[in-house]
């Protein structure tokens, strides 16, 4: 078991989420930065979609009561084991009683903790990703205990040394496709959207990121239609809302842009006050 001593600001169990229950209104969910989650698992030789802990802004403090191997990726939160600093992107053996703590946020916004074999929390509708009304708990709380497999006694670590480029954590360019209603915008609106920088407002969470700057909006609401994580909606008041992993499955606001998968990972590592710009992704050459 992994005992939660401090939960941090917003910590949840995430894998790749629920990909085939949208027809009954179930959100996709899953790790906000799938690239980082995938990498933490890859370091340990786990399946890419094993359940990891996603920590936001302020990390957790946890104690292991069985030996295992861990890997940390994503945001740099000054991580320590028993007060000794450890590096991200490395397999680290932990022993029974060891305490892993996350400190000051130095870079990025979301850190991931993977354990060998993944966390063994309940699977609901094919995923361990926490979401209110679907899983029993929405977040990790102080005192929670998460199970994981005990390390086999004959276990010999043999981790491939993988080079991981985390430059994306510094990027502020958000690559996008044209949204379903992009062509309904005027030339000026389209240009503004793709040229001016936008600031992430304080309303940012796993469901959506609202941007501070507004765009003059003359578009009517649309007949409720499908949306995806990464869909950028334009509200009647001109606010831009970027839907994130826990977003609803349908929406009624015009969809002006759609983030690429990579851009979703980049944005997930940004928070209040950060400036980003949208850039149209070049079409694939045939």
């Amino acid at each position, binding site marked *: 078991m992994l005992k939660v001593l401090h939960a941090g600001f917003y910590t949840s169990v995430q894998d790749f989420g629920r990909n085939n229950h949208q027809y009954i209104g179930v959100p996709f969910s899953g790790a906000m930065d799938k690239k980082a989650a995938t990498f933490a698992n890859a370091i340990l030789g786990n399946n890419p979609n094993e359940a990891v802990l996603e920590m936001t802004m302020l990390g957790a403090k946890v104690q292991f009561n069985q030996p295992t191997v861990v890997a940390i990726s994503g945001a740099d939160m000054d991580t320590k084991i028993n007060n000794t600093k450890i590096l991200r992107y490395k397999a680290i053996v932990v022993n029974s009683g060891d305490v892993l703590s996350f400190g000051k946020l130095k870079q990025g916004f979301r850190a991931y903790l993977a354990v060998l074999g993944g966390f063994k929390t309940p699977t609901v*509708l094919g995923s361990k990703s926490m979401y209110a009304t679907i899983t029993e708990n929405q977040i990790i709380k102080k005192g929670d205990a998460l199970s994981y497999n005990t390390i086999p006694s004959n276990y010999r670590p043999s981790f491939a040394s993988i080079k991981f480029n985390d430059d994306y954590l510094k990027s502020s360019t958000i690559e996008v496709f044209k949204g379903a209603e992009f062509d309904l915008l005027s030339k000026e609106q389209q240009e503004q959207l793709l040229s001016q920088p936008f600031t992430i407002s304080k309303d940012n969470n796993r469901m959506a990121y609202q941007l501070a700057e507004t765009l003059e909006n003359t578009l009517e609401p649309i007949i409720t239609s499908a949306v995806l994580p990464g869909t950028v909606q334009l509200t009647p008041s001109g606010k831009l809302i970027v839907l994130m992993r826990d977003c609803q499955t349908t929406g009624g606001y015009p969809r002006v842009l759609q983030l690429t998968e990579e851009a979703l990972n980049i944005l997930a590592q940004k928070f209040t006050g950060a400036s980003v710009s949208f850039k149209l992704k070049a079409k694939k050459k045939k």
Partner: protein
Amino acid sequence: MNHKLTYKPYNEKSILVEWPKVIDEAILNDILQFKAKIEASEGFKIMSLTHAYQSLLIHFKKEIDDFDAIINQLKDIYSSKAEVIQLRQKLWKIPVCYDSSFGIDLEFISKEKNISIEEIIERHSKAIYKVYFIGFLPGFLYLGGLDDMLATARKATPRQQIDKGSVAIGGNQTGVYPSDSPGGWNIIGKTPINFFNVNKSEPCFAKAGDCIQFYQISKEEFNDINTLVAHDVYLIESEVINA
């Protein structure tokens, strides 16, 4: 299968298909037929198909290299003369307690529309509603067919919490909140029926194309059914409507 559809790439892995911008049962049936044909066709590796009133989002497992080629294949499937797939559709009868302790906005609607509470209940439970799709919240049914007389604007300020099972009217739609949630619709009653249960292999009993009819129950009946639902032994009354 004779509508003029538009096909748009949506992201790396998905394509959005759109029907004319109207809410209509014939379009719903056309979408459901197309969906069934896509599901029956081989060669596509599809992760999910999400439809709404006049749109269908096709989400593939892998990144699409050649959108034009896939869109052409989809067009062929749409126009293929394949036999119409008989979709089994059901009418579900949903008990609702319209007691004023649950239906906290009944009086407001009654004054607003200048009709009696009894008439609101009668009109609401007489209609047969079509399930167009499920979205917004897990298990939230988008229902068409609300009596025009009952259409009531959403509240300017949404309530912080609306109880699970609340039956409500928002604009020209009616619906049931499948879980506790904030919401701006006008509450007219409550059903003990569970619209979303993750412990079932099919968490939501209804599906797009099905119909819903509400019927009035007393508070005692509400409590009885509530107990049965809690023990997972309540069987929702239903009949097949297109056998």
